């Protein structure tokens, strides 16, 4: 399980990761607590954190969003 801290564009991040395969990791959106978005993943969390960070950074809003990804 990983958690994405996202003050902005939470829906965008959900769509970006939920049920999508990125670098052999599939993310599933589980729940939201304020700015925290929880995703389960079919890979080691440490690897999933790296992949999620890269996917968000490479997205169209990635360069301007201030976010953090951690193992939940």
């Amino acid at each position, binding site marked *: 399980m990983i958690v994405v801290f996202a*003050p*902005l*564009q939470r829906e965008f991040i959900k769509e970006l990761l939920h049920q999508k395969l990125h670098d052999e990791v599939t993310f599933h959106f589980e729940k939201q607590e304020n*700015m925290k978005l929880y995703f389960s993943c079919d890979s080691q969390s440490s690897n999933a954190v790296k992949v999620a960070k890269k996917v968000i950074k490479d997205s*169209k809003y990635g360069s*301007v969003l*201030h*976010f953090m990804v951690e193992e939940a």
Partner: protein
Amino acid sequence: MNNFINWLDRKLVPIAAKFGNQRHLVAIRDAFASLMPIVLVGAMAVLLNNVFFVPWSLVAGYIGAEHPFIVWANANLAPFFDALSAGTLSLVSIYLAFAVGYQRAQAEGHDPLATGILSTASAFVLGIMGNADTGSFYDAKGMFIVLIAALVTSEIFFKVTEKNWVIKLPDSVPPAVGKSFSAVIPGAFSLGFWAIVAYLFTHFGNTTVYVWFQNTIANALLVLSQGVVSVMLISALIPLFWFFGLHGANLLDGVLQPIYGQLALNNIEMFQQGVRAVGGEGNLSVWVRGSWDAYVFLGGSGATLGLLIAILMFSKVQQDKEIAKLGIPTGAFMINEPVIFGLPIVLNPTFFIPFVINQPVLALVGYTATSIGFAGPIVNQVPWTTPPILSAFLATNGSVGAAITALINLVICVLIYAPFVIMANRAEAQRLKEEAIDTNNQPANV
């Protein structure tokens, strides 16, 4: 609050993304980032000389310039570090020209090597080597012109290539040779354009682009960038972006780095050349890129080390105290993401005012202390992860006044955050009270 966040999502983020993804600004930002090894190696070499080995070093200030160690180090060690600085910081505009061209081409799917080389050549066509009267512009002084030259060169190169005005060789020719030939015509257009510009300046103005820029726009930019209002405005803007969940550094670096980054490198070069006066044309700049690290970003953006100290001193919220304890070690090295998202600070109305206003206040104090000569100017580049106070001390080549200023700033930001931490205590007490009332009012399960 949700409506406001929705508004930010719909209106502000797309505009910020357009600005943050603007291809020329991205190329400038990434080019500066790619120069990091050169700038850091050069800056470290200058730092070591300035602190230990030369007669005007920090150590020499304590033990005397005639001390046998200084005499020996100046003869045997300083030349090694001088060579490192001469090959890095003193030629930084050349590297920048290449890096900007390279980054632009890579982003647009063109030949990065050819574009980088042509961008570098443009800097020379425009006269970066200078003459006996003007001196060269290889160092930070030439940065603005090479930035413009590299960006325009890249555009000309792309346009000509896209029109397919290229020499095509048979497939049997090795790829490297084929690529070189296909860059000949675009290269001729790019360099030819700059040759015309250089000719016009020399023929009609009896000057070069570099000298003209230095005497006109650079001085105007210097005045603008060194104004206390500009410094305070930028200092407020950065945490404002962070607070709303936007990447302040990424958004502003494309604009700030060419101005304040250049001034930082200028200060390093000028200090080495013996310039000690601060403020005004031909002197060391009062405010450069490193000034924010030394006096403002104490513990990271928003000077959050002050907040952590205020929490440890005044907070009654157990969770906040735990986060503060965990945040102090990383905050000491200027990393504050765990605090920004952990407390959280972003989108937290309680901390909006102190998070945004303390930076301009700290900048004002740092600026004033440097202007009046209490703190020395920033003349060394230290890694941004250097702990507060030590960072100011090293960046100013051992100015005790600078270290005291950073310490005063740390106290100021604790004082600015303290009332809001106490306010958070009250809010937490109220929340616990309401929670207790809710629990008492719940019907008991029978």
